[in-house]
């Protein structure tokens, strides 16, 4: 503290503090990383197959959808909002795209493209609506997106008549199970989204202002920025990722089910928060979200491998979630020192 707050007598060179700053950032993310490492170590020792390359491929596949949703969720949580509708919106987008993709009389490529565009558009529209309503009337996003959760789910069931839509073009399925040196292509897509989000949040003015809005919306408004549209954009991005998640869901499961994604919102939010992003907005990082999604995925995978009963597994998942944030607390305190 002394160095930071002294008067001119002892100025810190920018180099010095700069190093210090990024080191702290590393420790920050490393903290959650360490929890993850601990989990990985634990499962490597206590289960046979955990480090098996196939299992790693499995884990990567399994976290993909949650990760994609969590990336969008990070934007919304950073501005101090929340989006409970992502699971339902994903189902809605999937059903719309599924309806399209099973239409006869189109070429494979066109129809896949059309389906993807529809899915993304559906997600986009729902997110836009969430954003417009929330921002225009300055209403709590919790309740608005809870409304959207019901609307999108009802719409998905209505459009599909509660039937699972299936029989997609082979090329589409291929994409869902394709691997690149053992890494699922869909995971690479998710990873690309993470990097893109990181870039947007840290290297663009838009991103920095999103942080700013989460911090002090009024100040950003007084600085002359169109806060309204920035908030709408954050929700729209979240809806968009739900649309992308729908595509991955369809490619991976080869169906479009109107009851897909129930409860996915809680998993996505958990990934974001375990990743150290503050629910009150303004603080956090999408890299943390990546690690958070990994913690949840590794935990789910490892606890099955270890052969615990389902109920024990559920309880332990709860305990680990809590322990992870407690550990993160100590990590943060340590990093401050």
């Amino acid at each position, binding site marked *: 503290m002394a160095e930071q707050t002294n008067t001119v007598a002892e100025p810190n060179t920018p180099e010095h503090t700069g190093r210090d700053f990024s080191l702290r950032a590393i420790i920050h993310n490393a903290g959650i990383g360490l929890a993850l490492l601990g989990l990985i170590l634990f499962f490597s020792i206590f289960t*046979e*197959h955990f480090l*098996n390359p*196939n*299992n790693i491929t*499995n884990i990567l*596949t*399994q976290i993909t*959808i949650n990760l994609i949703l969590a990336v969008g969720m990070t934007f919304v949580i950073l501005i101090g909002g929340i989006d409970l509708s992502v699971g339902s919106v994903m189902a809605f987008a999937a059903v719309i795209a599924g309806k399209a993709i099973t239409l006869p009389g189109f070429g494979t490529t066109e129809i896949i493209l059309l389906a993807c565009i529809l899915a993304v558009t559906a997600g986009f529209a729902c997110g836009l609506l969430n954003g417009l309503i929330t921002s225009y009337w300055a209403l709590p996003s919790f309740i608005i997106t809870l409304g959207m959760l019901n609307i999108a789910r009802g719409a998905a*069931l209505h459009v*599909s008549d*509660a*039937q*699972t839509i*299936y*029989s997609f073009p082979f090329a589409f*399925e291929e994409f869902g*199970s394709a691997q690149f040196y053992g890494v699922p292509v869909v995971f690479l897509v998710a990873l690309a989204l993470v990097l893109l989000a990181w870039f947007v949040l840290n290297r663009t003015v838009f991103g920095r202002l999103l942080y700013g809005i989460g911090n002090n919306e009024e100040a950003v408004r007084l600085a002359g920025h169109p806060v309204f549209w920035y908030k709408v954009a954050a929700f729209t991005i979240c809806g968009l990722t739900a649309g992308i998640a729908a595509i991955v*869901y369809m490619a*991976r*499961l*080869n*169906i479009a*089910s*109107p*009851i*897909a994604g*129930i*409860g996915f919102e809680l998993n996505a939010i958990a990934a974001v928060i375990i990743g150290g992003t503050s629910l009150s907005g303004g603080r956090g990082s999408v890299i943390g979200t990546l690690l958070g999604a990994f913690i949840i995925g590794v935990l*789910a*995978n490892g606890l*099955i*491998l270890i*052969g615990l009963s*389902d*109920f024990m597994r*559920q309880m332990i998942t709860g305990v680990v979630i809590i322990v992870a944030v407690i550990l993160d607390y100590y990590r943060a305190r340590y990093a401050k020192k």
Partner: protein
Amino acid sequence: ADKPVVGLIMKSLANEFFQNMLEGAKEHEIKRGDYELRAVGMQNETDFESQINAVENFITQGVDAIVIAPADSRAMVRPLKRAMEAGIVVVNFDVALDAEAKKQQGVELAFVGPDNRGGAKLAGDALGQLLGAGGKVVIIEGNPGADNANERRLGFEDSVKEYKLDLLDSRTAHWETEEANTVFSNILTAHPDTQGVMVANDSMAIGVVKALESAGRKDIAVVGFDNIPAVTPMIKDGRLLATVDQFGQDMAANSIDMALEVVAGGPKLEGWVKTPIELVKGK
């Protein structure tokens, strides 16, 4: 050599039907003693992904057989195909994989299990016989989009057609007691002339029976499905006209037996190996 490993994949173990099934399978493992059982369920009924994950995990673990009650008849076809390609014996029980989807994927897989639609029709018929043509009935459905919910609804509707019943309303209560209680109370208000209720599982049937008790209506007959222990007293005293037993306890165990036979070099299973269903009625 090592004992063969059987991976058992079920639906939500929070559902007592599957929980009982698991108990049966565990007893069976001990009784037979010549194989190792690894069982997984899912967090909730709609969590298809975790079943796919489970199949993938079992492929990774190199189990000898996968015995699965698919959460979605269409979503599971492809991952199971992959399991078969990896040389794993796959047995499908409880809910049949979608025939169309199987054909598309070029999968040939037998089904071991009850006839949900037929079972529902048994229960529906019991109600139809009681009420006769023109009887006014209501259906309480399971989770929309779930295969067994769909099958059971179709079964009920078959009865409605056959007995020329008058279907007043058909609504979901998502398999839940409390929701069934609420939904049916409201239906009863809208249709006080209801004479019979067909309920897609017993948990919901309990809620319906309670709603009738609260409303003081003793003139309405209810049929359920599953024969869980909690409805036994209701069957006895006639609050529940009938329910359907699928003998779930044995279903997984029997399927495991069949899988092990194939693993041991027996012939491939084919078609639909029907398991018994039975209408359970009071006196």
